[in-house]
Structure formats: structure tokens, C-alpha cells
């Protein structure tokens, strides 16, 4: 079992979702986060005071999958999120120790899908 965490551009969320659905990955958690990588932050100005290095809005996706679903999921996220520009984001893959479906209390790989 793996936990895939992807940080993407907010405006690519729709494409990423569609790509995941096409790859038959239907489960995900989405949150709005702030951050930046090599793209750098933006400069904002409020009544003359410049505030540099402001963090950019990003979308964080978390998807728990069984091992044979890792590559299809990564491929789907990349196909939806990639523009070739700085700031497209990153994908992290973690090992997942346990997964419990609360409703049935079943555990392990069968609880993920």
C-alpha cells in the first residue's frame, strides 16, 4: 500500500481529476495549501508596502492505493498537471503501513479501494 501525495497548480485540478477518473482512480482527498518550489513566490503591494516571497496557492491531493495502482495513478496525475512551466508541482510516494475502513473495520489492501 502506498500514499501518493501530489502538489499541483490549482487551475489544473479539473484536468487531474478527469485523468484520474479515466484511469479508474475514484478516491482522493483534496486540500488547498500554500507553498512554492523553484517557481518562487509572488510580490504583493499593500498601500505601498511590498511583501515579497508570498506563498502561492496550490492544491494538495492525497490518494491511497495498492501497489499495482501506483504507476497508473502517477501517470494520470502527470498527464493532467503537466504544462512544462515552472510551478507544475511534485508527486511524493510514501509507504503506507495500515488502512482501516471505519464503517466495516476491515484492514489492509481490501480496505483501500
Amino acid at each position, binding site marked *: 500500500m502506498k500514499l501518493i501525495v501530489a502538489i499541483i*497548480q490549482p*487551475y489544473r485540478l*479539473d484536468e487531474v481529476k478527469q485523468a484520474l477518473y479515466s484511469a479508474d482512480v475514484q478516491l482522493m482527498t483534496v486540500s*488547498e*495549501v*500554500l507553498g512554492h518550489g523553484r517557481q518562487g513566490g*509572488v*510580490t*504583493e*503591494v*499593500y498601500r505601498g508596502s511590498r511583501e515579497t516571497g508570498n506563498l502561492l*496557492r496550490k492544491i494538495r491531493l492525497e490518494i491511497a492505493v495498492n501497489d499495482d495502482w501506483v504507476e497508473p495513478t502517477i501517470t494520470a496525475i502527470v498527464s493532467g498537471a503537466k504544462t512544462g*512551466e515552472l510551478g507544475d508541482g511534485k508527486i511524493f510516494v510514501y509507504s503506507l503501513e495500515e488502512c482501516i475502513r471505519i464503517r466495516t473495520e476491515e484492514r489492509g489492501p481490501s480496505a483501500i479501494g
Partner: protein
Amino acid sequence: MISNANNAWVLFSAVLVMFMTVPALGLFYGGLVKKKNVLALMMQSFTCLIVVSLLWVTVGYSLAFSPTEWIPGVLGDFKWALLNGISPIDPSPYTVSDPNGPVSHLTFVIFQCMFAVITPAVISGAFAERMKFSSYLVFSVLWLFLVYIPLAHMAWSTNGFFAKHGLMDYAGGTVVEINSGFSALAGVLLLGRRKNLKHLPPHNLTYTLIGGAMLWFGWFGFNAGSGLAADGLAANAVLTTNTAAAAAGLVWAILDWVVQKKPTILGAVTGAVGGLVAITPAAGYVTVGGALLLGASAGAVCFIFVVFVKSSLGYDDSLDAFGVHGIAGVLGTIGVGLLASPAITAPFHMNGGKGFAGLFFGDPHALGIQIEATVTSMIWAFLGTLAVFALLEVTMGLRVTERDEAIGLDITQHNEKAYTLIE
């Protein structure tokens, strides 16, 4: 001799109309866009208030309303530039229902100023989320001179040919509503659609509801101030305005319920604004019964346009400036040619004492004039705005880059954002 009572009401009406542009329209529109574009949208309304206010007192009012003209029937001259030669005790050269109690000429100037402010602000809804601020700024100047001022002169100045033909346009169905609606359509066609258009819900409908309610509030000044008197005709205008808004809001909400399964807040508010638009040319000519009919039909017709026609034609009128203001403006301006009742205007000795009558009240002549003015305004607004936009497109460009559109206009055009995520 100036009537201080009338003057007080029309001055206050001018203030109410100012409130319609900022904050009302800014909130009404602002709630409908994505949260990365809300400031840019509100800034467009605010820009109209700033730019048009300055243009109006310098040369705008004079070009629109001076009795001496450069182009007969179309454009005045600089007689009243910087309001030169207008004394605070001068009576307004224009009266509607109370010729013996004119307001101060300066009151008329500021009341008309607020009309000129809100009209381009209404159009801005069509360009939401994709137009460069620099181009918008230039647009607001060019458009005022090339499109608004000549149309205001045609419709409202004593030399204008609409006025000479006996057009019934109480508060701006042609100059404000048809004008802004068809200008919006021209702008939308040249500007093109937004990217990533689908699945994007309005970011804050509470803003839209508050803004819509504030528009309703301000519209009492817009319509009932247009008689330039604090008399019974103003009371009629307040009642017809309120009635038409309520009827249109109800009809849209019911249609939502039937067609889309739930009565939506956005539908009720949009419908009410459509009703306010439709009653604008008619407020001082029709009875409350006429207002019910106009409002209800505005709710239905705007619903059909926005929900079915827009989606089938595929143009991207972001915030329905055309679908609501253009369509309901046409409906109201032609509708008053049917529904005007002499029982409303005859007691004020208007139109030579016999009052204004529409087709249903025995004057078939009126409808022809209304249609003539409607078509003239539609064509004027559409072609004039098309020319302004084409000029901007070849000189400065209209749209932000695709990347800026994706990041949002607040950051890319103004270096600010409306909401923070942390703190």
C-alpha cells in the same frame, strides 16, 4: 425658481445611484467570479466611478446635454465644459412631471453623472476574469465618448431626436440598459471565451445576494429620481420598480424549481435584477398592473436567454450583462409602448395634458417610436463598442496572457489578493 423639495429628492437619488455602482454592482458581480479575480472585478466598477466622474464634470456633461451642438441631435459642444456658466441657483433646463418646480441644474448634473458611471460598470461583467486592466481603463474613456454620450444626447437632451419623436424612456431603458447589454455582447464576441470554463461555481453567493439587494435599493433612486420631482409620479415609480423586481424574482425562482429541480438564490436575485431593468424605461408610465406584467415577463424571458440560449450559442457573457440588461432592456422599452397608461401621466399634464398611452391604451403610434429607439440603441451600442474593442485589440491587446488568466487577475493585474489562506 428651484423647488427645494424636488431638489432634495433628486440629490438623494443621485446618491442612491452612486451606491448601485459601488458597492452594489461590485458585490453582485464579485460574488460570481472565482476568488482569484474578485478584486479585479470590483476594481472595474470602482474605476468607472473614478474615471467617469472626472470626465463628466470636465466635458462629458456638456457634450451630452448642452443645447448648442457640434453634431445636431447627436453631440453637444463645450458650452458647459467644467460646468462653466452653470450657477447653483440655475434651474435645471429639464423637467418631467413638475415644470414649475425644477431642481438645481447642478443636481441634474450629478444625477446624470451617476447614470454615466454605472453604465460602463454594468458592461464590465461581460469581460470578467480575462481582460487586461490597462485596456479596460482606456476602454472606459473611449466608450464614454464614442458610445454613451452621443446616445444620452439622442435620448435625453432637448435636441435629441428620440425626445423629439416622443420616446417613452423614463429612466434609461435605451441609454443605460440596452446600451450596456448590447455593448457587452459586442465586447464578449471580440474578447472570446474564458479558458477552463467548466465546473466553476460562483465563489461567494452571499456577496451576490447582498449586491443584488443593494441594487434593488439603489434602483428606487435610479427610477423614481428620473421624474426630477418628489411628487406622486415618483411614488408610482417606486411602486412599479418594487413590484416588477418582486414579480421577476418570483418567476425566475419558480422556473428554476420546475426546470432545475430547486429554487436557487442566484436565480431569484438575477430575476429581480432583470425585473428592475425591464421596469426602468416604464416606471413613470405604467400602472402597478403593468409593472407586474413587465416584471413577470422579464423573469421568464431572461431565464430562457441565460439558461438555454446562451449555452446553446456558446458565447461567454461571464456575468450575463447581455442576457439580463440587454434582453430585459429591450423587453421594457418595447413593453412600455404597449403598457403605458395615460391614467398615470395625464394628471401631471404630461404630453400636452393627455398623458402617454401605449398600444393597449389606444395609441398605436407609440409602439413604433419605442421599436425605432430600441433598434437604434441596439445598433449604436453594438457597432460603437465593436469599433472601440477592435481598436484596443490591435493597439494594446484586450486579454491577459493564458498564464495570468490561470493565476488570476488580482495578483497579475493588481498585485493583491482578496483572501488569505493562512492568517
